[in-house]
């Protein structure tokens, strides 16, 4: 079973990479862009066929290690 985890900076916290890229896009003339956020994607391959149990375990991994709950939100999705 393959999981896709999307991790991104919480709304309202400073995202220097997003801000710099936003400025660059606007400088290129893409004036409709109002915000840019960077995140990271992690793919996990897991053994077993119990999707619910595996999802719960992946969520625990995110809370404990893969994301920092102080500054990041995350989404989990089964992709294969």
């Amino acid at each position, binding site marked *: 079973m393959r999981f896709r985890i999307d991790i991104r*900076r919480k709304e*309202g*916290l*400073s995202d*220097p990479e997003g801000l*710099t890229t936003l400025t660059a896009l606007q400088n290129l003339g893409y004036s409709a862009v109002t915000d840019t956020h960077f995140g990271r994607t992690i793919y996990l391959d897991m053994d077993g066929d119990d999707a619910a149990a595996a999802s719960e375990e992946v969520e625990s991994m995110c809370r404990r*290690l*893969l994301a*920092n709950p*102080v500054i990041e939100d995350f989404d989990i999705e089964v992709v294969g």
Partner: protein
Amino acid sequence: MNVAVVVFPGTNCEHDVKHALGLLDIKSELVFHLETDLSAFDGVVLPGGFAHGDYLRTGAIARFSPVMDSVAALAQAGAPVLGICNGFQVLCEAGLLPGALVANRDLSFICKPIHVRVESATSVLTAATEPGAVLRIPLNSYEGNYVADPATLDELEANGQVLLRYCDEAGNPTEPANPNGSERNIAGVANAAGNVAGLMPHPERAVETILGSTDGLGLMRSMATFLELAGATP
């Protein structure tokens, strides 16, 4: 007092810290991160470097190193725990200090002397300094940009947990004097009890005239002063 200077794979400031503490007659020993018993020590320093390669996030892997349970136990017991640079990031990841450190505002690695102003002198990092003192010490980091939500920042300010603020030479915490975009120019914070503290600049690199500044001496001495003030044997 006897200080454990923790060495993670990738730590690179442990000898500087040990040298600085030695100049102040504070005994210290290097302790590898696999150690699980720190009961022989009165305090801990987590030095700078790139623990576990800074993979995933700075400090994210290091916080699960075997030594960290003992560090947390000492912190809870009220013993001095100090994180410098990468050590600060580890303490934040471990939840022993509030907030987090993210990439610098200008996305550049900053390596230069900066000025900080002492905001509160009741902590393990500042007990031997004076409030309002302006110190010149080196900054050496890419992820030094301190962030926390506004409620947490307000609480830190109200409790005197903001220890150091980036400022200009005259002590004004202006925006141009904020090298990395840290919220409210924050360079160092403590927990509510003041016994756990972290800062991004490197006080251990400002302890001898030949290094260009001795302004870090007071900060490095503060662990011992904090214990003396608490009535313990230094």
